[in-house]
């Protein structure tokens, strides 16, 4: 039960970065364009970031992970989040067993 200096620094960096996004929104509320390129890029941002996070596991790890990721995506467009996660986890366990 301890806090290392490196971990504390990382946590503080995350905290500052995260509050910056929350505070900045209040601050620039009147200046965000309702359309145009900036708006298009910002609208695309959440899906783009989350996809970038999973791509190495989904595309560059192995066939079991790639197939399970595809199954998860199909489930995600139909099921609530918790059921989606359960589907993905069961799929990867079965596929790892079958394929490898």
């Amino acid at each position: 039960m301890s806090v290392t200096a490196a971990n504390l620094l990382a946590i503080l960096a995350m905290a500052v970065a995260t509050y910056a996004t929350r505070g900045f929104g209040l601050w620039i509320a009147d200046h965000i364009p309702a359309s145009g390129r900036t708006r298009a890029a910002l609208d695309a941002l959440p899906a783009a970031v989350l996809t970038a996070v999973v791509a190495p596991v989904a595309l560059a790890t192995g066939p079991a992970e790639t197939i399970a990721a595809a199954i998860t995506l199909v489930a995600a467009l139909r099921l609530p989040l918790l059921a989606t996660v359960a589907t993905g986890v069961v799929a990867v366990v079965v596929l790892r067993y079958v394929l490898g």
Partner: protein
Amino acid sequence: MRTDPLSEFRAGLAVILPATLAVIPFALILGAAAAQKGLSPLEVGLMSALVFAGGSQFVAVDLWTDPAPWLALGLAALLVNLRYVLMSASLAGTLKAFPRFWQFVTVFFLADETWAFAERRARQTPLTTPFLLGLIPVFYVNWVVWTVIGTLIGGSVRNPEAYGFDFAFTAIFIGLAAGFWKGPHTGMVMAASAVVSALTYLAIDGPWYVMTGAMAGMAAAVLVPEPAK
């Protein structure tokens, strides 16, 4: 307009209760994964209390190495949480009647769930302080407490890959990404992001694939305009 503070408080509590229960499994998964990466319960509690942004905490734990790469983790948190700029900007209009200082305190606790419920409430009736006090604190404390409990339990789980536990992360992110699905244009953004991210991952050591993939997805969104509705 006159409102009964207690019923406002209860209304806030009632709308957030299902979401509060629903995040418990994710808090446990996050805590357990953090324990696998060697984070202590106190560190996880600090992270949940100070950052309080589930998506970026999942990404951070996924990228965590020893010693912690603070710059990469801070940048990743910034990128993952950039959506809060838009969310708090929209909340600025909703909170217009509140003092400026109180607005900046409120957005510290901004989460996808509380934001969505606050905006929905504001469409029906003006937001009140008691409503926000019902909406936010329980949800916040709940997240901190259950991520710490997850850390305490998770340290004792051996060989998590055998249970597909590692893939729970991937599945959560895919599920969250799909929540932003608005049709083929989103699919194109995700494809551009996925390809560039995977290639970067294979070419360069470290978590840079998050930045390059995100940039590629945003570039695709700008270069290929969304068809008019």
